[in-house]
């Protein structure tokens, strides 16, 4: 008991205006079971009272995949020899869907959990993080679809496939960076609710989902400045990375573009966390 008492005396919780707790990340870790439970809740609830239930988890990515394949085929984007177009498209659609759902989920995670924010204390970052976890579960299901497609085309990826988790992480960094930023803005300005669908809709056209980065970097008609702008999109590195992981040397990474894109992701995450932490203490007041 004495030890506990002295411990408490040395380390009380301080409540003061703007006091940023040094134990924030420790708290976040302590609330990891809440994170898991919130994700579990979202998954459990999503398909309640639907007629075909979990089948939606398969149908949605399949439909998107079909649409993307059709667009790519229509505009005749480059497909390296020996790679089925559908796999090329899947390698981009899957991470894009992951990004879109993680971004969308985390951006609205605070305003959909208003009751929790105004009544319970926990590190607020638990909410966007839990939605990212939900997206990962969706992604796992989509990955099974990809495996089936590869089996159907009797396609076997090279050792580069082991790098896939790295690019997966990169997609989450990009989604979380943008998501944290918009989530915090959403608390005060509900305008950003309408920005998210726009970014996702528009984003798919500037991201190599229906086409491939080779079409951009290899096209001499596109000015360097535009290529740089293109590379500033964090998802470019993710999708190029995914394609590299699946198809290896057939689709080599364009390094300057890749590094620019990764840097953009990290900057976005840094800014997102900073803004989130700075405004977090006022969430319960303004939401």
């Amino acid at each position, binding site marked *: 008991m004495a030890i506990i008492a002295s411990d408490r005396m040395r380390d009380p*919780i301080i409540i003061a205006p703007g006091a940023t707790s040094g134990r924030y990340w420790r708290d976040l870790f302590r609330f990891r079971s809440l994170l898991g439970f919130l994700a*579990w809740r979202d998954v459990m609830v999503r398909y309640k009272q639907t007629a075909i239930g979990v089948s939606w988890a398969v149908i949605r990515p399949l439909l998107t995949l079909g649409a993307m394949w059709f667009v790519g085929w229509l505009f005749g984007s480059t497909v390296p020899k020996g790679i089925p177009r559908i796999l090329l498209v899947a390698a981009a659609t899957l991470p894009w869907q992951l990004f879109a759902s993680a971004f969308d989920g985390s951006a609205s995670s605070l305003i959909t959990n208003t*009751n929790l924010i105004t009544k319970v*204390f926990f590190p607020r970052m638990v909410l966007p993080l839990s939605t990212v976890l939900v997206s990962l579960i969706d992604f796992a299901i989509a990955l099974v679809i990809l495996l089936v497609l590869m089996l159907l085309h009797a396609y076997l990826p090279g050792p580069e496939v082991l790098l896939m988790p790295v690019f997966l992480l990169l997609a989450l960094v990009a989604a979380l960076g943008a998501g944290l930023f918009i989530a915090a803005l959403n608390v005060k*300005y509900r305008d950003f609710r309408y920005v998210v669908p726009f970014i996702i809709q528009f984003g798919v056209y500037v991201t190599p989902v229906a086409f491939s980065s080779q079409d951009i970097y290899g096209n001499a008609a596109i000015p360097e400045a535009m290529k740089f702008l293109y590379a500033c999109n964090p998802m470019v590195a993710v999708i190029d990375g995914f394609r590299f992981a699946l198809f290896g040397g057939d689709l080599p990474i364009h390094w300057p573009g890749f590094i620019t894109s990764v840097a953009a992701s990290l900057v976005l995450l840094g800014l997102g966390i900073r803004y989130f932490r700075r405004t977090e203490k006022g969430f319960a007041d303004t939401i």
Partner: protein
Amino acid sequence: MSVPIITAEGLGKKFILHHQQRERYTALRDVIGIKARSLIGRRPTGGSSREFWALKDLSFTIDEGDRVGIVGRNGAGKSTLLKVLSRIVDPTEGRAEIRGRLASLLEVGTGFHPELSGRENIYLNGAILGMSRFEITAKFDEIVDFAEVERFLDTPVKRYSSGMYVRLAFAVAAHLEPEILVVDEVLAVGDAEFQRKCIGKMKEVSSGGRTVLFVSHNMAAIQNLCTSAMYLSHGRLVMKGATHEVVSEYLRSAEKGAEVHLADRPDRQGNGMVRFTDFSLEDERGGPLASAQTGSAVVFRFDLIAQPGKLKNLHLAMGIDDVHGQRILHLSNETTGEIFPDATGCSRVSVHMPRCPLTPGSYGFTLFSRVNGEIADYIFNAGIFHVEAGDFFGTGRLPESDQGAFVTAHHFTIS
């Protein structure tokens, strides 16, 4: 020497009230508009917002094992204080130190999801309140037992009755094991049986040496549960001390709501030898009360004006009616045998009731006086007064509101 488990120094919380704003959040359009106006040198059309201090200069300490009741009118800052201590909102000024794990229950059933089953919600709610999966599993049976929902564990809670819902929600929170438990007005929901269980559980919690902060409008519960109390008014700490002193101070100073002016009432009968002018409630020491309290002393005070001259054989009576207008009590100096053969110079009548037997609620009253055999003043339905819950039996329990208008001392034996 023990260090207080909670220390607060000058805590304050300011809100900005926007009068014409329907939603609390801002639209970007407004911000851009204001910025644009200030760019061209015009000040934003202000005046529609003003500051409001929900808490101001709040300093106190709470020792380990204390059970502290927080009383005050609606809007006095009770809930804001709990939110600040729970770290849900940031204070605007001041500082507090908390030396232990704090769990708060500000609302029953926060985070319950209607589509999930009882079992699933126990885990979810436990996690929201800060329990680990292991802790919840260890407590699971106890929680189910307390909530009495074993048969419905796998039913979605949207199909629960409101009573079951509330029981389950409280059960999860009650099985938290924090060093400091913060509970807002949660007893307002649920029936008497549920409230009894809740208070019992909270006593059990604090008998283990844990600290409890408890907000309630139920004075019986506060008196029964708490070892000390704080009285907040307009965000400031008015008084902190022993529970019964704080509660009676609160009831006394709460409002002047109990005064009824009778001087100008036209609907009266009698020859006017005496006329009732005012009615109010007082405690034994003559301090004003806003309402009577079951089990506590109350004095019904009447001011009156008598015509000059002798006032012989003054007879006074007060009839008390329930909300349905049913006469339930008749207080009279004839029945008590306190006759006043000569009441000359009398300007005040006090009816003393050492332990108010009325159960919480509103009551109407009728006044009657007779001087020397003739009706002097008679006001039918003169006014109403209120009775708040109090700890009549020393158990913190009163019958349910539909179980009679009175309580009386009694005991049971079995053989």
